[in-house]
């Protein structure tokens, strides 16, 4: 129906149109009307996500698997929801650091590591070549299908694939490698990509409308007829669909949408305005939704049409219009598929070539040439162009090799899984400052190895290059190494299986190795710049270069990469902005060197820029002190900025905390003073009486015997009081100190109570107070110091006795059992303790009222000592109202072995 010549002519005309659009776009940008300023162009260019895989492959998948094609588009929709949160951070960092690819991003994040950049570049190339092959295959196949009606095509599959590769390489080179500066956007190229997105959408919608309303009488009719076929009906109701694989695919495509080299290229490198994200966040998912509405109907129509019987689902989009003799529609479909394939190939090869040139070729060049002069611009541009050609050639070779028997989607998913290996290091590096280069490398290499073993390697079985037993029995018969059931993980589809293992290994290695050692100084600094990117308003330049590079050699270095004119312009712009005179600057400022580094990074990538600069400037090695200083500096800047209101809020909280601690210390100090002062008073009071009477006795030898003995009695009594006080004070000090170890032996509390009460019999009898003891038999023992516990009983009971009214006094001592503890109660019918004093009485020298028997009875330390002893036993003491209005002191003691309780610091009085 179409001659080969006509078809080729149409294809070439389309490509010519692309060239024209790209050329116009570049012209417009040069004239100051950058087409990239439109968020719509940005969103449409992101639709480069939809490749031939979408255009032909989705229908193929839907024809056998129903809804199975959809997760690939649901994932990016979810990614768009998070775009403003996560993707914006990557975008912001990339703009500040002038990053040019995903390899550059990771290398820069992890200490500008050239090796890491190289590894990422390799992963990207290996993961992407099959994907490019898929596009070439689609172009060639669709071309042949279009011509098949008129007998065998004059052009072979190989020829078609090769010519497609050649034309696309030319386009990518012309519009993608004109300038050596990678951070300069390729306005024309992106405009062409956006245009292609429109073409493929229109083409797909056209065929969709034709199928639904041309071949059938609308959606209802189509679905109703499909439902009549039991196989299709089961498919339509998702019978037997694997939810696990569905979830994995959703997650996988989310990661792919962010980290595929071409997505990074259009989404990050070619972005000119962060705010475009707020348009693309809904526009792109909407695009994906619209382009997918007809996938299922077309697939069903293909399955039901006799014209497509036996054909691969991947060809339905083209075969349906062809079989209905709608030639013009078939051509439109062909162009749509062409646009989907070409846009992907162009952007992908461009992105890959940047990585290959900057992260694989340039480090070698730099090492070879060292600091020897020579212009790097030509070698750089040439290596990029060669890389494009090489990647496309590899793609072509893959496409014509036997391996491409697999369906479009399965090849694409293998690529997705490879790219997903970049996710842990990228996302981790974005939020976790502790992630290190070694960790990233370990994760990446580990994950990639597992990926290679579980996905691409088994496909060699299908081509006969490996024996089938490799899959069914494992290498050398080791069944736990079966590539589709690693370590016995059976029952998953190969993709889910590979993702589970590779991402698990990746994340575990990344986190594990990162945790082994702290990041080095450069990594640490980059980590801050990445993780905290939103904290810096503007840029906080961190001086990492010491100032011993002459401006002249810096200038010479830059010229080698940027050319003299651009170098001069850039340096002059910087000097004007900074207000410095470069001609009179002998040695470069660290700031100038940092500027030069970033300038260079836009051309060579971060890792190579660092290596290149190291040839003329000395890199500072930061020691801890300097890092702290830097952080100090940074935090000052931070506090100043409005964005950090939050930070100063934190600081405020922190200083409030400090103030509070200070208050506490002061309070403690005051308490200490109070205590010392009180203790002095308590000690001096008996001393005063003793001294006064001693002097009286001395000065008045003539005193009568009765007076003498009265005064001597006072001296003795005060002396005794003094001794008791000193004893108690020492006791308390021992209890508060760390030294004293409490004996922990099983102690029968009932026995302790009996002993303690017995010791007080006399005191009680003398005051006419009755003591009643209740303790049930068979109580569990408490672990503790028997003598100390007797002291507790004596202290409490003697207090109770003293506070009881004489003659009618009644003290009840009881021991009860209560959930894992024993409760000792001492109850009196005295005046009780007012609620306000219930805490205070346990402090030193706090007596609320005079015991009825007179002042000398207590030292004011008894309860303080008691509380310390109880605390040492892991127990608690408190006071309540007794039933009869007196005080009820309660002591709880754990019956289990007492955990060594923390000694209470001296003087805390707590």
């Amino acid at each position, binding site marked *: 129906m179409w001659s080969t010549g006509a078809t080729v002519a149409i294809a070439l005309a389309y490509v010519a149109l692309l060239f024209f659009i790209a050329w116009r776009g570049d012209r417009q940008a040069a004239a100051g009307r950058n087409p990239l300023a439109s968020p719509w162009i940005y969103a449409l260019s992101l639709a480069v996500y939809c490749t031939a895989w979408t255009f032909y492959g989705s229908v193929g998948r839907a024809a056998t698997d129903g809804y199975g094609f959809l997760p690939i588009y649901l994932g990016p929709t979810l990614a768009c929801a998070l775009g403003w949160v996560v993707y914006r951070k990557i975008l912001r960092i990339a703009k500040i650091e002038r990053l040019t690819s995903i390899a550059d991003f990771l290398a820069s994040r992890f200490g500008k590591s050239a090796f890491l950049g190289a590894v990422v570049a390799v992963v990207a190339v290996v993961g992407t070549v099959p994907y490019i092959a898929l596009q070439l295959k689609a172009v060639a196949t669709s071309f042949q299908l279009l011509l098949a009606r008129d007998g065998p095509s004059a052009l072979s599959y190989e020829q078609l694939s090769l010519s497609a590769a050649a034309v696309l390489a030319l386009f990518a080179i012309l519009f993608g490698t004109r300038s050596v500066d990678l951070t300069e956007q390729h306005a024309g190229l992106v405009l062409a990509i956006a245009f292609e997105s429109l073409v493929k959408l229109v083409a797909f919608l056209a065929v969709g409308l034709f199928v639904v309303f041309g071949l059938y009488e609308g959606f209802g009719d189509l679905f109703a007829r499909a439902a009549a076929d039991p196989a299709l009906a089961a498919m339509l109701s998702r019978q037997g669909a694997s939810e696990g694989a569905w979830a994995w695919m959703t997650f996988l495509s989310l990661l792919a949408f962010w980290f595929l080299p071409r997505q990074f290229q259009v989404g990050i490198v070619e972005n000119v305005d962060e705010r475009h994200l707020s348009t693309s966040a809904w526009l792109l998912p909407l695009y994906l939704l619209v382009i997918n509405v007809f996938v299922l109907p077309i697939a069903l129509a293909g399955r039901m049409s006799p014209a497509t019987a036996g054909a691969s689902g991947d060809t339905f989009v083209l075969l349906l219009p062809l079989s209905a003799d709608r030639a013009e529609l078939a051509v439109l479909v062909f162009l749509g598929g062409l646009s989907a394939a070409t846009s992907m190939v162009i952007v992908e090869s461009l992105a890959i070539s940047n990585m290959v040139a900057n992260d694989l070729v340039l480090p070698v060049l730099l090492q070879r040439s060292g600091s020897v002069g020579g212009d790097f611009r030509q070698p750089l541009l040439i290596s990029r162009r060669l890389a494009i050609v090489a990647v496309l050639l590899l793609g072509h070779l893959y496409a014509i090799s036997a391996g491409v028997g697999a369906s479009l989607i399965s090849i694409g998913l293998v690529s997705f899984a490879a790219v997903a290996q970049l996710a842990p290091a990228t996302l981790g590096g974005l939020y976790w400052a502790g992630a290190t280069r070694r960790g990233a490398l370990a994760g990446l290499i580990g994950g990639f190895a597992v990926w290679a073993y579980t996905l691409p390697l088994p496909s060699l079985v299908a081509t006969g290059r490996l024996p089938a037993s490799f899959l069914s029995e494992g290498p050398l018969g080791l069944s736990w190494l079966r590539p589709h059931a690693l370590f016995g993980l059976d029952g998953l589809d190969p993709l889910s299986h590979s993702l589970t293992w590779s991402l698990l290994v990746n994340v575990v290695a990344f986190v594990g190795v990162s945790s082994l050692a702290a990041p080095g100084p450069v990594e640490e600094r980059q980590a801050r710049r990445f993780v905290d990117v939103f904290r810096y308003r503007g840029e906080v330049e961190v001086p990492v270069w010491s100032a011993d590079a002459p401006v002249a050699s810096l200038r010479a270095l830059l010229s080698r990469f940027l050319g003299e004119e651009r170098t001069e312009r850039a340096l002059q712009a910087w000097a004007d902005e900074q207000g410095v005179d470069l001609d009179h600057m002998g040695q470069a400022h660290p700031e100038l060197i940092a500027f030069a580094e970033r300038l260079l990074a836009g051309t060579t990538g971060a890792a190579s820029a660092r290596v290149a600069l190291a040839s003329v400037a000395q890199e500072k090695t930061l020691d801890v002190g300097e890092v702290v200083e830097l952080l100090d500096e940074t935090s000052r800047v931070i506090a100043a900025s409005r964005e950090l209101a939050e930070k100063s809020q934190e600081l405020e909280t922190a200083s409030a905390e400090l103030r509070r601690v200070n208050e506490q210390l002061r309070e403690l100090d005051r308490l200490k003073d109070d205590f010392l002062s009180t203790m*002095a*008073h308590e000690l001096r009071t008996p001393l*005063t*009486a*003793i001294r*006064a009477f001693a002097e009286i006795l001395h000065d008045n030898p003539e005193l009568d015997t009765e007076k003498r003995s009265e005064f001597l009695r006072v001296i003795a009594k005060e002396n005794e009081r003094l001794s008791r006080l000193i004893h108690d004070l020492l006791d308390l000090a021992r209890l508060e100190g760390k030294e004293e170890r409490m004996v922990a032996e099983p102690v029968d509390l009932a026995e302790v109570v009996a002993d303690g009460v017995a010791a007080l019999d006399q005191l009680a009898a003398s005051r006419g107070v009755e003591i009643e003891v209740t303790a049930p038999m068979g109580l569990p023992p408490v672990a503790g110091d028997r003598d100390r516990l007797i002291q507790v009983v004596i202290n409490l009971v003697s207090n109770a006795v003293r506070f009881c009214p004489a003659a009618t006094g009644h003290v009840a001592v009881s021991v009860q059992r209560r959930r894992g503890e024993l409760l000792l109660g001492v109850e009196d019918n005295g005046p009780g303790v007012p609620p306000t004093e219930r805490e205070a009485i346990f402090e030193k020298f706090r007596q609320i009222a005079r015991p009825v028997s007179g002042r000398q009875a207590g030292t004011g330390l008894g309860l303080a000592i008691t509380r310390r002893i109880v605390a040492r036993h892991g127990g608690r003491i408190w006071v309540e109202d007794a039933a009869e209005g007196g005080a009820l002191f309660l002591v709880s003691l754990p019956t289990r072995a007492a955990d060594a309780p923390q000694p209470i610091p001296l003087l805390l009085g707590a």
Partner: protein
Amino acid sequence: MSRERILIVEDEPNIVLSLEFLLAQHGYEVVVARDGEEALAAVEARPPALVLLDVMLPGIDGYEVCRRLREQPELTHLKIILLTARGRDAERLRGLEQGADLYVTKPFSTRELIATIAGCLGGSPP
């Protein structure tokens, strides 16, 4: 010459006992108050020549008693000696700020105390 009256304000019975004996021995007439309220009442009832005032009293403390006494213009001739077991400068200062004439730290030498009282009352002990 009538004996000069001294009010002892002190809650420690044994210290009161010693002071009572000492002062009586040196020819003063002695009145005793056990706490601040009692002291204020005693002064109002019959102002003494001198108050020997302990600082650590139950209820109203010695400083407060001192301040209240000094508020009364008719008591300008009343001498006040503070007695305290808390010997820090800050407290000495505080006592003097409240209008005490002198400040004696416990434990005191009986002879010095008598000399101080005598000096305060402007003469040798009776």
